[in-house]
């Protein structure tokens, strides 16, 4: 969600400059050209500053150039490299290269135009790289591959029931409210229900305060929301989304109960992120109408929905879910059933490898810096601190009977993440900036000793390969297993659910840029050094021999 605070200040339009700004609005760059000395200059003047001739003419520039020099801006809303760009036409100008892999920028790299919106609508001159433009075109193509589901039935939906008034449930309820559906929020606990309702009301109030909603829209949206503690009230709902605790018995009981009262045409969805949707559907008499709608937290903000297809889900139900997602303004990627579906399955591979790297000698801040330099909005440990990953891993390990010394130590010391003020990092009250904490460094060193691992220096390239290539490999396996239809679907999941930047395409697109043969070669080397978990997927091995990529070439 873009917000006004990221907009650049409005530039002053001096008399005579108007044509420059009109061209900029169309994505074109105008220079001033002197008929007397036949030279162009930037920025515009009525006279020629090179020879003094009193009259100059506008001339459109190619917009292509190369980097003469550059630097990097640390904290910026978008990747930004202040730069001096030399245009093909000759002039060098002070500008910025944005929305591109600025950490990989080099002098003489080609750049191309990219205008940035400003506060009063004018477009400010900036540049980007052709590689970033290519990735954005790929993203657009990938989105259009998703297709448009027929929207009639989804548009006719009037009421959604959301079961479970926790974080996910209230987020999902807000997503429906934003699309103008009536929402019935249900929770068996009146206390939870009251807390959930308050959260939604606070969010709506904030929208009102910040001007995102006017008073009448706010009132209308609030009027769409009702609550209940009785499951019987779902009878009028066109779509029912379950978002309760991840417990198969509980969910099966719920779906059996929903089945008994829901309207015959209703779409029955579970928001589970870990359980078998087929087994949940089997608790009903209508498995054709049951599927997963896996929203991402916060559900009213994150644009991704994984639509999980169970073995008996009907094609009509899938189409309806896709159309509904479109109505909610979401990107719906259809996935099959597997542990973690698409997004989390790749994430789990990365997190496990990151944990392994900690034991071998890397530090959280080092790993996170490498991931940020790679282009991701956040490192894996910052992300875990923000999302409460330590507690999730702790409980998951407890359930599966595995032990993880470091996770246990962190959890037992109350280091559960940002909300607790400490996790892999520590945080000052009210701030979100991760600060390295010697206590964690000590724990990591102890964990290495406990595991009998002698810590060593690990360079950036090894960290990058060991975190990114397993994601690629896991993605290839998802394609082999038929969990996703297209490699680009995996990339969309990572863009819209995990913040992989559009200028970098996604993990599968990235693999194609590296070259599949190179990916296989590196995975083979990692397997030889670190074990079978790096064994390349057979799809990758096959593609490496055929010179084909995972993603289609763009026209």
């Amino acid at each position, binding site marked *: 969600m873009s917000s006004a605070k990221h907009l*650049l*200040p*409005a*530039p*002053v*339009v*001096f008399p005579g*400059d108007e044509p*420059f700004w009109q061209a900029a609005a169309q994505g074109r760059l105008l220079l001033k050209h002197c008929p007397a000395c036949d030279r*162009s*200059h*930037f*920025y*515009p*003047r009525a006279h020629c*500053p*090179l020879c003094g001739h009193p009259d100059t003419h506008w001339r459109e520039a190619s917009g292509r150039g190369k980097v*003469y*020099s*550059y*630097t*990097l*801006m*640390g904290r*910026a809303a978008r990747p*930004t490299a*202040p*730069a*001096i760009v030399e*245009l093909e036409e*000759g*002039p*060098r*100008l*002070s*500008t*910025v290269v*944005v929305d591109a892999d600025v950490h990989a920028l080099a*002098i003489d790299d080609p750049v191309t135009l990219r205008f*940035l919106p*400003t506060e009063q609508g004018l477009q*400010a*001159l*900036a540049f980007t790289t052709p590689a970033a433009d290519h990735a954005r075109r790929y993203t657009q193509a990938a989105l259009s591959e998703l297709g448009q589901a027929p929207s009639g039935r989804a548009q006719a939906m009037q009421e959604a029931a959301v079961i479970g008034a926790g974080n996910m449930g209230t987020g999902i309820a807000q997503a429906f409210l934003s699309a103008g559906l009536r929402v019935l929020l249900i929770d068996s606990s009146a206390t939870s229900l009251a807390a959930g309702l308050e959260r939604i009301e606070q969010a709506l109030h904030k929208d009102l305060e910040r001007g995102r909603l006017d008073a009448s829209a706010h009132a209308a949206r609030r009027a769409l929301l009702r609550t209940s503690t009785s499951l019987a009230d779902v009878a009028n709902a066109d779509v029912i989304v379950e978002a309760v605790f991840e417990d198969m018995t509980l969910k099966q009981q719920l779906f059996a109960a929903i089945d008994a009262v829901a309207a015959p045409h209703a779409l029955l969805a579970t928001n589970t992120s870990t359980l078998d949707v087929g087994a949940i559907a089997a608790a009903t008499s209508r498995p054709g109408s049951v599927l997963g709608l896996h929203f991402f937290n916060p559900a009213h903000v994150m644009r991704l929905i994984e639509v999980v297809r169970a073995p008996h889900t009907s094609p009509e139900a899938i189409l309806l879910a896709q159309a509904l997602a479109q109505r909610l303004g979401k990107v719906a990627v259809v996935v099959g059933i597997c542990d973690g579906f698409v997004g989390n399955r790749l994430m789990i591979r990365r997190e496990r490898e990151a944990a392994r790297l900690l034991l071998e000698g890397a530090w959280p801040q080092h790993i996170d810096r490498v991931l940020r330099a790679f282009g991701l909005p956040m490192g894996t440990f910052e992300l875990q601190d923000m999302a409460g990953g330590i507690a999730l891993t702790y409980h998951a390990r407890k359930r599966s009977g595995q032990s993880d010394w470091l996770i246990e130590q962190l959890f037992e010391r109350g280091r559960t993440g940002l909300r607790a003020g400490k996790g892999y990092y520590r945080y000052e009250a009210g701030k979100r900036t991760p600060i390295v904490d010697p206590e964690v460094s000590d724990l990591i060193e102890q964990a290495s000793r406990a595991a009998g691992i002698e810590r060593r220096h690990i360079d950036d390239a090894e960290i990058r390969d060991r975190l990114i290539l397993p994601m690629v490999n896991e993605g290839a396996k998802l394609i082999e297993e038929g969990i996703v239809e297209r490699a680009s679907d995996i990339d969309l999941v990572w863009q819209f659910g995990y913040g992989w930047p559009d200028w970098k395409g996604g993990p599968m697109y990235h693999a194609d840029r590296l070259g599949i043969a190179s990916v296989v070669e590196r995975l083979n080397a990692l397997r030889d050094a670190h074990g079978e978990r790096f064994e390349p997927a057979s799809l990758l091995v096959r593609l490496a021999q055929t010179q084909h990529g995972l993603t289609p070439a763009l026209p």
Partner: protein
Amino acid sequence: MSLHAKAYIAGIYEHPVRRADTLSTAQLHAQVALGALQDAGLTLDDVDGYFCGADAPGLGGLTMAEYIGLNRLRHVDTTESGGSAYLLHLSHAAQAIAAGHCNVALVTMADRPLAAASGTRLAGVDRSTMPNLPFQVAVPPMPMYGYAMVARRHMHEFGTTSEQLAWVRVAASHHAQYNPHAVHRQVVSLQEVLASPMVADPLHRLDCCVMTDGGGAVVLVRPEIAKRLSRPRVKLLGAGEAIKHPDAGRIDLTWSAGVHSGAKAFAEAGVTPQDIRYVSLYDSFTITVIVQLEDLGFCAKGEGGRFVADGNLISGVGKLPFNTDGGGLCNNHPGNKGGMTKILEAVRQCRGEAHPAVQVADHSLVLAHGTGGSLAGAHAAGTVILEAE
């Protein structure tokens, strides 16, 4: 008109404050004015020429003339060129004295950006009507980005390294340990500079100067007056000024206006870079020092990185001691304008009155040089060469 020996520096004063929460900018100007006059053995009534930049509150020097109590002014000059302005003021004051416009010229500089929380903005400079700014509205205005691009290009063309940049800071820190007023007095190692956070790649935090409040003043007088005063005499041998700008898109980051201001000053002084025993160089960033050394002729273009390595700028260690007060990197950088403090330490060295631990043995010839504005954009360079008499 040659300025050779036409004027003498008779008095200097550096304000000890580094954060002026309880002093106004006008008070700072007055205190440095009185300090420099006292140092010279002169009074307010002796001053008939006044020079200040846009940091002086009010209208073109008039407000400060009244506030300080300058009642016999015959000449005023408010040239503003950023940090180098005070080097230009020295040159202009010498011209005015030589032309008979005044006898005793006072230059004041003072500002309080820390106390006023005004960041790197230069006081008194209105950017709202600058015609180029709308076309670079996406470019962050902080100076460090421009200088980082100068450093990057220097590395690209000449093979300059981060370690060589770091040597400039290391040298400055060696000097600052003896300055009780310096913001940073601890000696730093190459490794500490290189390990400091990257603020604008390839510049680390320790490649950047400090931000402080404060100021300073200089009194320049006609030779006949200098001879009557009791302080060690510092003769202005030569001065040069030059400007450089992006020239409608003909940007070249590898050289600065110092090429021209330096050549003019050396020619007027009748000496060469090899004769100079101490230099005050503008040190907004470590790269600034390297580019200026090349442009002034202390080494060939592109050799600046190698020139500063291995402690060559450290007093008592290297061949060309610089900024023995700790400079902008370690001591102070009042008002984000380092030109005045460059003059002050050059005068101390020339008088033989620098801290004994950093005083150069042969202080017959010293040079002060400043670059105001941005090395990556429009800037003005000012060079002065001083001789101990």
